[in-house]
């Protein structure tokens, strides 16, 4: 059947028969193809019984018909500008089922074209696609919510006597006032906390954006806390990428923010001996939270973990460093020991209020650790060894290997 069709098509193509005749001729020619196929391959023939004539190439006709004009239009537009060409390409990719956003702005298109490699392009498109998807979902949820609210309002529309309440209703507005009052107090009496804004060169544009997002979150949780820190943004240059991102987030509120933003370095503002640089690479582990010290947090998101960058900075300035005692309190599972800035802020705030490590380290993401360590690590290690040797008869070496999995080498040496 198939080979017969092919033969037919070849005859049609070979201009013996004009193209226009194709549609008309085909029906008449079909009986011929049937006999041919009968003789050629009997097996296939059984699959189609003659009563139901299946023209397998109908779809081609359908696709070709009615689009001839489009083709002419297309040929006029052959000379596409590169930008329009890229847009066109994206549209085709979308049709082909790739992860490509539906709408793309001029700027995003330019950013797309500036991506250095194919994989970078793909990644950027996926990022835009997911962003679009989240936005759409959010919008849908908002709409649904509004509808529901309208419905409930209609139901409750009947006039009711005004409720009497002995509590004053605190609106967000007045809450803000209370928070701001606290933050203002912290600016005079509060313990300083420094964000070191000198890592712009170490980061990509997206990492800077993430950093600022995290700082905005930390500033928010600081403002809402009982006893806020006096936040300092040090080394923050005007017109730096950080600054631009801050303005994008805060808009006009940036000027009213109850924090200290300065171009100066923390070493110029505070006495050196009072400063402690917090970094995961530090060999020193923080034991207690000191209310008289000034802690510095590096404002850096390093997706490709760059070890030793902030430690190098502290070394250069001759500052004391400290790392959170994560290994002492948590049975670490996986993931890097560097935490996000907002997690750091939460941990520091809790420490400041309570001094309780367990409560503070609740803010470490749960996926990163198995649980809290109840006893000191070396005791735990001893009991683990004992249990294993007694129960399983596992040799000392293997136990060690197993242990090494959950503990870094550092601990083993101690």
């Amino acid at each position: 059947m198939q080979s017969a069709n092919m033969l037919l098509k070849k005859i049609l193509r070979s201009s013996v028969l004009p193209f226009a005749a194709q549609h008309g001729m085909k029906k008449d020619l079909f009986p011929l193809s049937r006999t041919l196929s009968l003789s050629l391959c009997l097996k296939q023939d059984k699959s189609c019984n003659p009563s139901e004539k299946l023209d397998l190439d109908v779809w081609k006709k359908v696709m070709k018909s009615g689009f001839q004009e489009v083709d002419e239009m297309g040929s006029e537009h052959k000379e596409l500008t590169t930008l329009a060409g890229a847009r066109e390409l994206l549209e085709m990719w979308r049709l082909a089922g790739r992860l490509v956003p539906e709408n793309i702005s001029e700027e995003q298109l330019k950013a797309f074209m500036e991506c250095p490699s194919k994989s970078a392009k793909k990644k950027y498109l996926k990022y835009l696609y997911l962003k679009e998807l989240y936005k759409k979902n959010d919008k849908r949820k908002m709409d649904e919510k509004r509808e529901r609210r309208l419905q409930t309002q209609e139901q409750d529309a009947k006039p009711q006597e005004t409720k009497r309440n002995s509590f004053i209703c605190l609106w967000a507005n007045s809450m803000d006032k209370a928070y701001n009052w606290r933050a203002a107090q912290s600016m005079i009496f509060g313990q300083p906390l420094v964000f070191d804004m000198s890592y712009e060169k170490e980061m990509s544009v997206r990492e800077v954006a993430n950093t600022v997002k995290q700082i905005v979150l930390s500033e928010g949780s600081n403002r809402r806390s009982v006893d806020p820190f006096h936040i300092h943004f040090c080394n923050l240059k005007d017109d730096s990428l950080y600054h631009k991102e801050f303005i994008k987030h805060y808009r006009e509120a940036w000027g009213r923010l109850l924090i200290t933003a300065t171009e100066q370095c923390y070493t110029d503002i505070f006495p050196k001996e009072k400063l402690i640089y917090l970094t995961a690479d530090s060999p020193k582990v923080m034991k207690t939270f000191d209310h008289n010290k000034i802690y510095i947090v590096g404002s850096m998101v390093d997706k490709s973990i760059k070890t030793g960058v902030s430690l190098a900075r502290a070394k250069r300035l001759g500052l004391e460093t400290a790392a959170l005692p994560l290994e002492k309190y948590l049975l670490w599972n996986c993931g890097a020991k560097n935490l996000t800035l907002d997690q750091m802020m939460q941990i520091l705030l809790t420490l400041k209020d309570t001094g309780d490590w367990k409560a503070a380290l609740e803010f470490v993401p749960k996926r990163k650790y198995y649980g809290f360590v109840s006893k000191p690590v070396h005791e735990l290690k001893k009991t683990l060894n004992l249990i294993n040797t007694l129960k399983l008869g596992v040799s000392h070496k293997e136990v060690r290997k197993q242990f090494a999995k959950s503990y870094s080498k550092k601990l083993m040496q101690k």
Partner: protein
Amino acid sequence: VQPPEKPLQAEEWNRLRESFRSPEVFEEVMFNSMVRCNSPIDVAKSLLTHVAKSNGDIAYNLLIKYLALCVQQGQTSEIRDVYEIMKIRFKILESGAYNLLIRGLSNSDQWRMALTLLEEVKKIMIPSRTNYESCIKAASRHQEMNLAFELYHEMLAKDLVPTLDVLQSFFDFSRGMKDAELQKELFGILLYLRENQIYPHKTFMRSIKLWFESIPGGNWRGYLTNIKESGQCPVCNRQLEDSDLTEEEYNNLRERIIRDVIHGTDTFRKTSPQEFEAFQTFVENRLPFDIVIDGLNVSHIKPRKMHCENLFDAVNCLAKDNGRLLVLGRKHMLINSSNWKRGIMKEMQSKADFFFAENISEDDAFLLYATLQSGKHCKFVTRDFFRDHKACLSNSLTRHLFRKWQLIHCVKSKKMFLSVFIQQPALRYDCVVQTTGDTWHIPYKDTFEEKYSYEVPRKWLCIQQKL
């Protein structure tokens, strides 16, 4: 879902579609499984017909999937038809369709059309290396070697890395041709292998051998062999190229290591300027060393033993027949502890020079510096492959120099029964494709799969010209 074995009528498709969990993606899922099961294209056609009749249109992704099926089965005329339809319906096509079209057409007698499609792809983006691969193979299959080489050079100019397959096809299809220009091009490919330290696999090596032997009037003969320890080829008795870096390469590497690995973006990341300076003067005063030992690394060789014992064994063993030793360590080794006994440390310090870096500094950087500074004869002992340091080097050429140097100068220590160190003899000859004009020596891999990057092949193809 299992695709049907024969073309179905519209009603039958409808029935199938309704019984499917999510009817909206039915066609897509069905086409996917058709491609997977390699169903006859008539079945696919009947589904397309059904879709076209009920929707009046066929979505682009379905067309692509149908095209994939046609390419898989080499249905050239169908591929052409789909292409025509796509051209009518869409202003431009995207890379996925072009990939399929080029692949499909280049394997057929209409391979020239693949070339025009390649030109079309160039208008919208850089073609992928598989696009070029298909076209080059098609051209060389039809003995259009000039065209194939043109495409090959175009591809290289676009920084695309050709697959070994493409390179092999050049040798396969040039067999028996007498053409000086062609010969030059193929020698060019061999030099490309040399420059990029690519080792051909066994079948590729065979293609090279056969091509050499087929050159009319060339009198080339190829032999498979193993090169002697000394670097002499047992077949032609020639000495292979020396593996030592040239003076210039060596100096270049040393400067790069100081600049990229030790200083990097910030000297404070690995050490501090004061410490590095102190180390520099320490090394300058005691140069040259014969062996530099990574103290901490060596001390962990036997986990049951005390760290300092391990190190002590190593130092003793190496001190016997070598000259000056330098052991690098960290300051914490000097503090008396269960693993580091002060007495033993004292004794060791009389046998070798020691430098203790700060506990938070990286001693590897010092190891590299001291070895490079001592000169070409100096070796170092460690189990570390220094991948992280290699990654710090800024360009691939230096990275390769580093690897070459590392292979030669790293004394890998293998522990035997009682901590006796075997020094693996470093290769004396350079393991790359090499020529002297009338001979070629080509190292090859025995298997297809990649060896560990630090291992080099031991088998060679020796080709010589009998005049």
